[in-house]
């Protein structure tokens, strides 16, 4: 198929349809409302259900109910709306139900603002709701990737019977870029959903629940969940390296929109003969800890600079990977302010000035 120009929110919506999503529940919120607008128009063509609920709390529970039937279900919202859904996400994780959540993040905390931010990294990657659980989180940095990862999220949600989330920011939602959709969405075969509540005629009724009053049964459920997260860490880690190599003195770690801005900064510095590399996590849960550790361990890397549109959230995962092997620095802007490439360059220069270039070893 030829490339077409689409707004991020619309491209994500179209990707979900093509991945076989049939049930979409929503409540409008900037900067992602075009997802709902697009699906209100297009969902009927696919014979699916579009439903605008009375609140995000209701959306969460509608997802829970619809997911129990084995359909591909999803929602999209932005930070405060996602918070309201957390109870249902926890229930779905506990009940082993697949579901896809699109979070086009905005500045917080509280009602915050409507401009781009990466403010919900903790909430997305560390569980979000109550209880001992994780959801799989993917972070696209351009619109083609947003399309590809949205489709993949439906597959992974089914594969692990677990909620999967796409986190983007207002920039991903609002900008237009060329995207290409596959003629036909091909995915690895998945097991038949024998767990789905599709009517009990001819078989025993199924029970889908997250309530286990027997502590042994509850612990057993937690062990099953942990096994899934361990499998994700083995099979679902995704990341990209940009201009990494033996000449890098500094390695940047950044994801999503922020990573593209870092790429521009890296290109500009390269033209001056300064070599900087970028490690970009694509899956932020599971986080590519060991892959990042390998990159920062190279002898030429003098320090690691994490850059986010937050006060330092992914930073904690980077700290875990680096584990004091190399000096760590951080730069972040918040509140909807997107750092410019010039600001990133300034931070890199500061860091380089603070650590004079290593002298070449004299011959004995």
């Amino acid at each position, binding site marked *: 198929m030829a490339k077409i120009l689409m707004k991020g929110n619309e491209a994500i919506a179209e990707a979900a349809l093509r991945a076989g999503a049939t049930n979409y529940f929503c409540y409008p919120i900037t900067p992602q409302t075009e997802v709902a607008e697009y699906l209100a128009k297009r969902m009927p063509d696919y014979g699916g259900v579009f439903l605008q609920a009375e609140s995000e709390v209701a959306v969460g529970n509608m997802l829970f109910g619809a997911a129990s039937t084995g359909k591909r279900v999803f929602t999209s919202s932005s930070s405060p709306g996602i918070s309201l859904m957390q109870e249902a996400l926890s229930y779905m994780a506990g009940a082993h139900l697949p579901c896809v959540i699109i979070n086009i993040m905005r500045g917080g905390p509280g009602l915050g603002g*409507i401009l781009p931010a990466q403010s919900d990294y903790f909430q997305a990657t560390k569980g979000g709701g109550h209880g001992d659980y994780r959801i799989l989180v993917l972070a696209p940095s351009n619109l083609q990737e947003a399309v590809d990862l949205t489709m993949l999220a439906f597959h992974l949600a089914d594969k692990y019977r677990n909620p999967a989330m796409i986190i983007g920011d*207002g920039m991903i939602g609002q900008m237009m870029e060329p995207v290409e959709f596959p003629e036909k969405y091909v995915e690895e075969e998945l097991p038949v959903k024998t767990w789905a509540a599709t009517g009990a005629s001819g078989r025993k009724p199924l029970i889908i629940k997250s309530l286990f009053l027997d502590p042994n049964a509850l612990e057993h459920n937690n062990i099953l969940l942990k096994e899934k997260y361990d499998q994700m860490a083995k099979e679902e880690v995704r990341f990209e390296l940009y201009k990494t190599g033996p000449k890098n003195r500094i390695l940047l770690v950044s994801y999503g929109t922020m990573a*593209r*801005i870092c*790429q*521009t900064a890296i290109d500009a510095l390269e033209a001056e003969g300064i070599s900087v590399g970028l490690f970009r996590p694509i899956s932020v849960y599971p986080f590519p800890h060991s892959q990042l550790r390998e990159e920062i361990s190279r002898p030429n890397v003098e320090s690691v600079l994490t850059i986010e549109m937050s006060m330092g959230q992914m930073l904690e995962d980077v700290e875990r990977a680096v584990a004091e092997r190399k000096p760590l620095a951080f730069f972040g802007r918040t509140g909807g302010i997107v750092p410019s490439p010039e600001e990133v360059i300034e931070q890199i220069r500061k860091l380089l000035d603070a650590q004079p270039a290593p002298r070449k070893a004299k011959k004995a």
Partner: protein
Amino acid sequence: MNQFEVTMAGFGGQGIMLAGQLLSYTGLKDGKNVVWIPSYGPEMRGGTAYCTVVISDIRIGSPIINTPTCACVFNRPSFDKFAPRVKPGGLLIVNSSLINVSTDRKDLTEIQVPATQIAIDAGNGRATNIVVLGAFVGATGVVKYDTLISVVEEKLGKKKELFEINRRVLDMGYKIGRERAAQRSHA
């Protein structure tokens, strides 16, 4: 050209977003990498609206452009905001029907286009954006003019009468842009 960035700015209703989108479609059709970004945020009615288009031969990094290669400004507040931001050596296209000043910057080229007047004279004041778009492509050649014509026809060709006006003012804008750019290079 490696990368060209243009910010289009005016007030709501002047077709700023559409002009940027038409340019993006044209870039895409020409086989370039493109990004279109609107200003989104709290705005009051009558405030400024702007969008930025990046057209590039290489992978586009930052979609946020603080200092564009070119700014097309449709009203005075946009002139005040964006004229100082254009990169040195860049281009400023001014809708002189609504902006009665010119920049005192000596390090850029300014092209004055009476775009709103041209559009009104042609029978549709709302075609201001198409005049400016024509002038921009005439002055820069960033995308192929033939491709732009085909995109305008594709996207705005449904209402025949309006399309004929758009088509006419596109040519007028294009000619002005091309002539002024030629004068500049012979000066």
